[in-house]
């Protein structure tokens, strides 16, 4: 039923946003504002947004978020490379598919607090290795599933056609399988972008000797009791994640415009 609805009117969507902002404002004003007028753990949305504006002109925030994004990008690229290598192995030896799937499940299951102390222990002080590893683990499962879905996207009829015209396995891979795999791959790449930032930011809660980054800013503001600052960082981090998703979506539309319609369905299967 939901699938056959007309697209949600933008007006109602905006209404939902207004309802949430008003509720947030009421909770902040009546639940978390001290008698002297200073804000508690939940500042009103306008105060938090105002602080976001102030943060945006502060170069320290740019370099902090940039550092986190850099670690996220490293982990993201490593995860993509690993998933592609697994994809090639599955292409060469199809029985490996369930093994690749299980590796993805294990990567998704590993608790953050379990892997982080080990990475911190084994990496030098001041290293962002833990952010990179957490970003990698966060991206790996959707990437592996995306690669496997992509490999399965070719119909037998398409392969028969290539073989009927005298094409070999390599021609089939080049002309059909890679093209067919692109929509699932792009969906996984999109989902992976915010996940990588999440991993990198969480990693900074564990890193030793790292004093910059979005996660570090959040922790230092927590120690200082700067609640407005914490909410501003939360909003900024969400915006960066959304930008990462949007950037990949734009790139996908530019590189493979025919995937714009199918991407949503594959993303549903990925979750």
């Amino acid at each position, binding site marked *: 039923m939901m699938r056959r609805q007309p697209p949600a009117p933008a007006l109602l969507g905006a209404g939902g946003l207004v309802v949430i902002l008003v509720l947030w404002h009421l909770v902040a004003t009546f639940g978390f504002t001290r008698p002297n007028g200073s804000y508690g753990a939940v500042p009103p949305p306008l105060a938090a947004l105002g602080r976001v504006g102030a943060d945006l002109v502060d170069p320290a925030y740019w370099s902090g978020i940039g550092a986190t994004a850099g670690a996220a990008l490293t982990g993201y690229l490593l995860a993509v490379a690993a998933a592609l290598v697994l994809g090639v192995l599955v292409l060469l030896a199809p029985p490996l598919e369930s093994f690749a799937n299980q590796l993805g499940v294990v990567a998704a299951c590993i*608790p953050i*607090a379990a892997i982080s102390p080990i990475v911190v222990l084994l990496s030098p002080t001041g290293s962002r290795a833990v952010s990179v590893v957490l970003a990698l683990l966060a991206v790996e499962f959707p990437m592996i599933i995306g690669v496997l879905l992509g490999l399965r996207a070719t119909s037998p009829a398409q392969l028969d056609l290539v073989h009927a015209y005298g094409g070999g396995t390599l021609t089939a891979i080049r002309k059909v399988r890679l093209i067919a795999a692109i929509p699932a791959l792009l969906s996984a790449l999109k989902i992976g972008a915010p996940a990588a930032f999440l991993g990198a930011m969480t990693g900074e809660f564990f890193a030793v000797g790292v004093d910059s980054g979005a996660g570090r800013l959040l922790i230092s503001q927590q120690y200082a009791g700067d609640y407005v600052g914490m909410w501003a960082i939360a909003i900024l981090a969400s915006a960066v994640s959304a930008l990462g998703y949007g950037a990949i979506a734009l790139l996908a539309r530019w590189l493979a415009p025919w995937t714009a319609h199918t991407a949503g369905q594959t993303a549903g299967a990925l979750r």
Partner: protein
Amino acid sequence: MSAGTPERRSAGARLRASAPALITTVVTLAVLLAGWQLAISVTNVNAYLTKSPVDVWNYLFVDGTFSPESAAERRAALVPMIGVTVYHAGIGLVFGVSLGLVGSVLLSVSRTLRAMFLPIALVLQTVPLIAMAPVIYAVFGAGVVTAAVIAGVVTFFPLLMNLGAGLSAASPETVDLVHAYGGGRAKLLVIVQLPAALPYLFAGLKIAAPAVISAATLYEFLFSFEGLGANLLTSRSYSDYGLLWTLVVVTIALALVAYGLVVLLERLVLAGRYPPESALARRGGLR
């Protein structure tokens, strides 16, 4: 995962059919353990800091290899830590699943609510919510409520999205049948939509169950003094590396067991009742 077949089969037959998946899991874990052992043997890492699978085995089962002397005593010390983490994770799971169920039913029943809040939910699920743990802590303070909210946050969105897809998965013919017999909205929900959503519930739980273990241990590590998470931190501070590596293995094992239990429950509950998973995976989500 092995795909089931559409015809009715007993739960036992269904479980036996999943034996290949179990073998793959065992092989995967063995490969990972061997890789860990190999990495330690081949590279020249510090043996004081780095423990191998054999060391963890010794910590758990061999007397006199670590302190305290008795392995049984070391194992006994782990039990309360696991208990606390399971408690935190369980509360969070129940909290997140309940909210996800209520949310998805509301979004499914009301077209207006769906138009108002689905876009926001779609945006929010990409937000790095677990990285906002310090904000949640600032709001709810130390205690089980914060643990439940942090673990609930990682459960809510997978459940909302999957159940939302499931509630809309009933075939139009079934829906028409209920209407033809005079059934109303509530009847449709209870006898058609909720049962049709069961496979989607398990799809959501497969993501949520290991995630609540991760969220609970993250909460314990950052904000509390009990549970596996907190002891991961203190064992490192006390340079008790045997305990640290054992806790890492126990925590990862707990998350894998949580996932495995959902898979097992799914196979028992859905045995012979639903089309194979592969047919479901092709359908679109709540969008």
